[in-house]
């Protein structure tokens, strides 16, 4: 069901963990649905300099987390917000239809982490 790219990304994920004193953290999903995704960001001058994830979920959720965190590194916040779930799916060279929601979760986690940062800045 999974292609080689998804399996490789799942097996070799390197953005795992949590950034200490992160500038923004976003958590989406819940355990009873089978998916929780948490993305933490290090942000300097409106630019994402580091991104890590912690994910409870299937191989697609883990591969989507890895791909999304990799894609937003080095991007400005506005650029990162332009990344949609379809872009994550494209980098993964496709996900099974019932797993598309995992890529949506990644898009939402990025947005939540950036919102968390902006909310803190706004204070």
């Amino acid at each position: 069901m999974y292609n080689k790219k998804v399996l490789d990304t799942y097996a070799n994920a390197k953005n795992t963990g949590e950034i200490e004193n992160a500038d923004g953290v976003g958590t989406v999903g819940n355990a009873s649905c089978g998916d929780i995704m948490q993305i933490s960001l290090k942000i300097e001058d409106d630019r994402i300099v580091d991104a890590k994830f912690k994910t409870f979920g299937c191989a697609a959720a883990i591969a989507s987390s890895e791909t999304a965190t990799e894609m937003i590194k080095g991007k400005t916040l506005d650029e990162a917000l332009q990344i949609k779930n379809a872009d994550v799916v494209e980098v993964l060279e496709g996900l099974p239809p019932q797993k598309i929601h995992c890529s949506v979760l990644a898009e939402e986690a990025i947005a939540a982490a950036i919102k968390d940062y902006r909310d803190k800045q706004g204070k």
Partner: protein
Amino acid sequence: MRVYLDNSATTAVDREVLDAMMPYFTDTFGNPSSLHGYGREALAVVDQAREKIARLLNAKPTEIYFTSGGSESDNWALRGAAHTYQKQGKHIITTAIEHPAILETCKLLESEGFEVTKLPVGRDGRVSLEDLKNAVRDDTILVSVMFANNEMGAIQPIAEIGAFCREEGILFHTDAVQAAGSIKIDVQEQNIDMLSLSAHKFHGPKGVGLLYIRSGVRAGKLIYGGGQERGFRAGTTNVPAIVGMAKALEISVRDMDNDNEHIKAMRDHFIKRVLAEVPYCKLNGGMEHRLVNNANFSFDYIEGEGILIGLDLSGIAVSSGSACSSGDLEPSHVILACGATMEEAHGSIRFSFGKDNTMEQTDYAVEKLKETVTRLRSFSPLFKEIKGEDTYV
């Protein structure tokens, strides 16, 4: 190393079984319904297989109907019996942990006006005779309880349920798809009126099964067409598959004690090691009445399909009760019915052993399981290591 620990999903066809089947693809290939010599030869072979199977189940050859497998047999038993006996009542009793072939058929029957009661199970995955007795009504026409569960291996009190139903005059069907091969089936002793089997679960070929229907029971028919199976199941007789099923059943009964001993030793070793060496996991179902090949665990803080794929990348094949494996959002109805939380059901993994597995493979699976669980927990948002101790956040 490649390790197949998904023997409850399907099994490899036994070499002896394959050899027995081969002549009936190319040499004795006739249609048993044909009147000529080719047909008569094939018919004789099917008759022999039917007699052999009947003997192994303690049934009569005329009570064995060949089908395409477990799902067809379950569909036939329930729909056929429900429609035939609906004038006497429209109430059916089954369990919360049946295979979808039963539960989906019950849903269809409900849409046709039948009422279905699903018996609950205890933490050990078993139904109680008391609950069954309380659920019976004047209009109950059929009870269907699986012989043994496919996910956590609970063996149901089939003989007792059969005796009770016989006394009450209620028809009793059992889906024995997962039980065949490791439990002795005797339809007389166990008071069974209808029974479903599928060959590929006991080292026979896929695409063939049977429905046992006790003589005197009217179960109508599901497949309409020609007059095969004494007019009750249309479709050209699958001669090689039927020969294979008969051979596989014969071998499984012949070798049952030895195979069970070997399989149980590996399974018990596996359960013991996992419970001792993997923190925060629990065995789903009980130990006393459990298929010898089954181990089903829930691993806290991580999701089952993630574990499955991790093990797969190490060459180990298992199945998972997580929603992500099934394609819908609900995790295993079986693990939930045994009292597990949604999270536990999402994190459940079934390991099912077979006669071809080895102790070396079992130990390899434990090691790879430990690695996979540790890795996935290392980045689970639900799990945190504090001062070297595993702590739930």
